[in-house]
C-alpha cells in the first residue's frame, strides 16, 4: 500500500491512471489541506522555474581545453584503470609460475623420491650381493637350508648369476640382516 505522499508524487508526475487516478482525486477532494499544500508547492515550483535561470557557461571552449589539460597531466587514465581488474597480469603470471614450480619441487622431494630411494637402495643391495662373491669368499658357495622369520612377507630366493658366476640368495622383506645372523 503506497503512502499518501507516494500517491501524491505519482499524481503530480502523471503516473496515476484509471481507477487509481480516480480514487486518488476523490481522496484529494475530501482532503482540502492536502489540496492547498499541493497548490502551494506548485506555486513555489512555478516561482523557482520562472526566476532561477543560470547564466550560460562562459568560455565554453576554454572549459574543455582546461579540462583536457588536467586530464593529460593526470597519469591515471581510465584505460589503465580498466585493465586493473584483470587477474592475469604479466607480473602475476610470473609469480604464479614460480609458485607452481616451487610446489612441484616440494611435492617431488616429499613424495616421489621415497619410492625412488627405495629402488636405489634395492639396486645397491643387489649390486653388493652380486659383487660379494669377488670380495667375500665366505658366501661364494651358499645354500639356503632354512628361512625363519616372524614376518610372513619375508621371502628367500636363490639363483645363479651367469655374468658373475655366483649363486645369489635373495632375501626380500627384511629391513636389515643382523650381523650375528648367518646363512647356513
Amino acid at each position, binding site marked *: 500500500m503506497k503512502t499518501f*505522499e*507516494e500517491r501524491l*508524487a505519482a499524481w503530480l*508526475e502523471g503516473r496515476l491512471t484509471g481507477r487509481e487516478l480516480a480514487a486518488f482525486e476523490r481522496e484529494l477532494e475530501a482532503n482540502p*489541506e492536502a489540496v*492547498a*499544500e499541493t*497548490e*502551494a*508547492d506548485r*506555486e*513555489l*515550483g*512555478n*516561482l*523557482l*522555474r520562472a*526566476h*532561477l535561470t*543560470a*547564466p*550560460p*557557461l*562562459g568560455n*565554453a571552449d576554454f*572549459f*574543455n581545453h*582546461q*579540462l*583536457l589539460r*588536467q*586530464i*593529460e597531466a*593526470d597519469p*591515471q*587514465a*581510465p*584505460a*589503465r*584503470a*580498466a585493465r*586493473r581488474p584483470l587477474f592475469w597480469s604479466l607480473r602475476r603470471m610470473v609469480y604464479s609460475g614460480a609458485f607452481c614450480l616451487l610446489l612441484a619441487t616440494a611435492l617431488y622431494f616429499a613424495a616421489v623420491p621415497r619410492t625412488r630411494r627405495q629402488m636405489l637402495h634395492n639396486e645397491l643391495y643387489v649390486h653388493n650381493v652380486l659383487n660379494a662373491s669377488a670380495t667375500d669368499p665366505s658366501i661364494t658357495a651358499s645354500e639356503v637350508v632354512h628361512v625363519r622369520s616372524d614376518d610372513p612377507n619375508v621371502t628367500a630366493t636363490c639363483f645363479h648369476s651367469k655374468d658373475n658366476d655366483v649363486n645369489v640368495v635373495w632375501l626380500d622383506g627384511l629391513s636389515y640382516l643382523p650381523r650375528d645372523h648367518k646363512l647356513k
Partner: protein
Amino acid sequence: MPLEGEPDIAPPDAHGTEPPDPNDGELVSRCQRGDAAAFNELVTRYRGKVYAMIYNMVHNEQDAWDLAQDGFLKAWKSIARFRGQSSFYTWLYRIMMNVTIDSLRRKQVGGETEFDDSIGLRNIDPGSVTTPRAGAHPQDKIAGDEIRSRIDAAILRLSPEHRAVILMREIDGMEYQEIADALDCSIGTVMSRLFYARKKMQSMLRDVYENL
C-alpha cells in the same frame, strides 16, 4: 528539463553521407579505452546542463566553473567503472551533485549558519500557505532582480541536501526515483527532504510568490 540527457542519434542526411553522432554509450566505450577525444565530446554535450545545475546550487559562477571541472575530472577517472546500469547523464549528474554537496559541506564546516534546519520551521502554518497576504509587497513593487535575490537568499539558507532535492525536482524536473538514485538514498528520504525544503522556502518566500 528532462534528466535523461542522452541526445538522439542524429539521422544521416538525405544522401546518407553524414555519419550519425555517436551516442553516449559509444563515447563511453571509447573513453574506457582511454580516448580523451570521446570524453571531450561528452563534456561538450553536457557542460551547459551541468554548469547550470551547479550554479543553482552554489550561486557563484567561478565556484560553479571549478566544481564542474572537478566533477568532469572525477568522471574521467572513474569512467572505467561505469557499467551502463543508468544513463551516462544520470551517472554524471550523481558525480556532479556529490562534488557540489561535498563542497558546500566543507564551507558549512567553516561556521556559516545558513544551513540550520530549524530555521523557519516553527513558523510554518500549513493552512496559511494558500492565503494571500493583502498587506505584503505588491507585485509591481518587486522587480525581477529582487525576486531572484530573495530566492537566492532562501536557497542559501537550505542545507546542501535540501537544496539539492528542491532544485532537482523543481528546476531539473527529475522524478523522485531519479533523485533518489542520484543522491543514493531512498524515495522516502527524498520526500522528507523535499517536504522540509518546500516548507522552508515557502516560509521565506511567502510574501513574494503569493503576491505575484
